[in-house]
């Protein structure tokens, strides 16, 4: 049923720290790996080793340059995946019931056996979170690793989405945004977590933690002053003079 649940018991999602993300793409690669061996059909690539490789990814890391009115530009790596919206437009447009949002935890999923591959859900998503599998011809999207987070057969430490587990800088946090005392809720509140394009009314659950201001003070000078000409003393002074003599 592609009507949305009135509310969900949990609102599972990610808080992504743009301050600590180094743009290594480990989250994207780990996601691709996990979702090529999981319960759904593999996330396919076409022409993977050829001239024009292309494939389905559930997480893509964009890199933006932000130029402030004064001062140096900063680089922000921006991993983008499904935001598991409260009012997900991708779900309601689905003609077959393949797209659905779970009432218990708010995860937005696709039942691949029902998907006709019309692509309308991808058009309805403002964020580009859904991609058509080039081989299976069904819509693929982030499952929040639903086959990991409840999986009792893997060690408890691994029961988080693959992207969160893989991140070497701890820039990705997983938790329940419906619980104001959860780590992600507190983190988002403390850091002024951003919702993407909230004016479109999708009610995204995921939050992006903007770069901290401390970053900027460290890179405040636009043109670093040229190193001062200092005359070396001691051993280095002797070496300098000796090399000078050698010409």
């Amino acid at each position, binding site marked *: 049923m592609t009507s949305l649940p009135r509310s969900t018991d949990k609102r599972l999602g990610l808080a992504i720290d743009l301050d600590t993300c180094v743009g290594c793409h480990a989250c994207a690669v780990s996601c691709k790996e996990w979702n090529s061996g999981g319960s759904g059909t593999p996330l396919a690539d076409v022409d993977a080793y050829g001239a024009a490789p292309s494939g389905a990814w559930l997480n893509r890391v964009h890199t933006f340059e932000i130029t402030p009115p004064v001062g140096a530009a900063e680089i922000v790596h921006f991993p983008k995946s499904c935001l598991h919206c409260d009012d997900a437009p991708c779900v309601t447009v689905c003609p077959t019931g393949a797209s659905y949002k779970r009432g218990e935890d708010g995860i937005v999923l696709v039942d691949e056996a029902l998907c006709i591959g019309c692509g*309308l859900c991808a058009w309805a998503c403002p964020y580009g979170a859904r991609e058509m599998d080039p081989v299976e011809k069904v819509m693929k999207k982030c499952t929040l690793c639903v086959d990991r987070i409840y999986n009792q057969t893997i060690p408890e430490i691994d029961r988080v989405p693959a992207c969160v587990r893989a991140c070497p800088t701890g820039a990705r946090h997983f938790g329940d945004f419906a619980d104001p005392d959860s780590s992600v809720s507190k983190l988002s509140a403390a850091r002024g977590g951003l919702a993407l394009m909230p004016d479109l009314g999708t009610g995204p659950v995921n939050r992006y933690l903007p770069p901290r201001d401390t970053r900027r003070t460290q890179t405040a000078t636009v043109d670093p002053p040229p190193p001062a000409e200092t005359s070396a003393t001691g051993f280095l002074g002797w070496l300098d003079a000796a090399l000078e003599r050698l010409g």
Partner: protein
Amino acid sequence: MHPAISVIFFTVTSGAGFGAMTVIGLGFPLDGSRLRILILCLAACGLAVAGLIASTFHLGHPERAWRALSQWRSSWLSREGVAAIATLVLFFAYGLIWMTTGTRLAWLGALSATGAVFTVFATSMIYAQLKTVPQWNTGLTPAIYLGFSAATGWLVVAGLGDAEAPAPAGLALVVFAWVLKLAWWRQSARARLSDIGASPETATGLGFRGRVRLLESPHTGDNYLTREMVHRIGRKHAGTLRRLALLLGCVLPLGLLAAIVVLDAPSAFMLGPAGVMMAGLFLERWLFFAEAEHTVSLYYGHR
């Protein structure tokens, strides 16, 4: 947005087919033989069905298309499928009764006309509902789909009918449809992403730190999103294509209709303007997709 040929063919052709059903169902003057009724009904249904079949060509799994009939409570695409089938059944019954008994049941005609109008409306709502494409997200989108459906449907019925077709009505329908389309073009020129204040700054939420520019795309090549929603081919030719769409879709059909009136030509000549107008609408529909900007392009460097 990617202008898929199957979807362009579908919207134009089934628009004309359901438009023809509307016109016939509302009692377009026809006093013909059984053969004439058969030809008319086959043409209307044929156009609608050809469009519907074409629309399944862009599906990843056409064999599962029947599943699209299940979610009519929430999905416009599903509503369109249900309405199309219901309308075809109603219109088939209307045509069959007309052919066998010789009487046109006005109530059944009105019912199939209502169904046909709703089907075209549902088609247009598939696009008009998308907040992600501001140029489509307007009440004028259903208006142009309905306007063009009525105009092309009228021309097809007038061309295949035997009675003296009231050509001024056809002229009025074509002009009315294009007035709506010109209003739509005017509106769409003001509803591009940049016009409504959407930018990489608003998309990332990072505008408060400065001007945002895509430095590196996630991948060196293209992907499904860029092919489907960041489509830019042909936009530089948009002006030429618009003039061509206007010429084929509006000026020529109007000229031909006027000539038919002046020369008192047989109504079969109405098929000329019908064909030319549909050719023009293929261009109009191509532009409808190719010129539309989707918010996801903001993450891929579009400004």
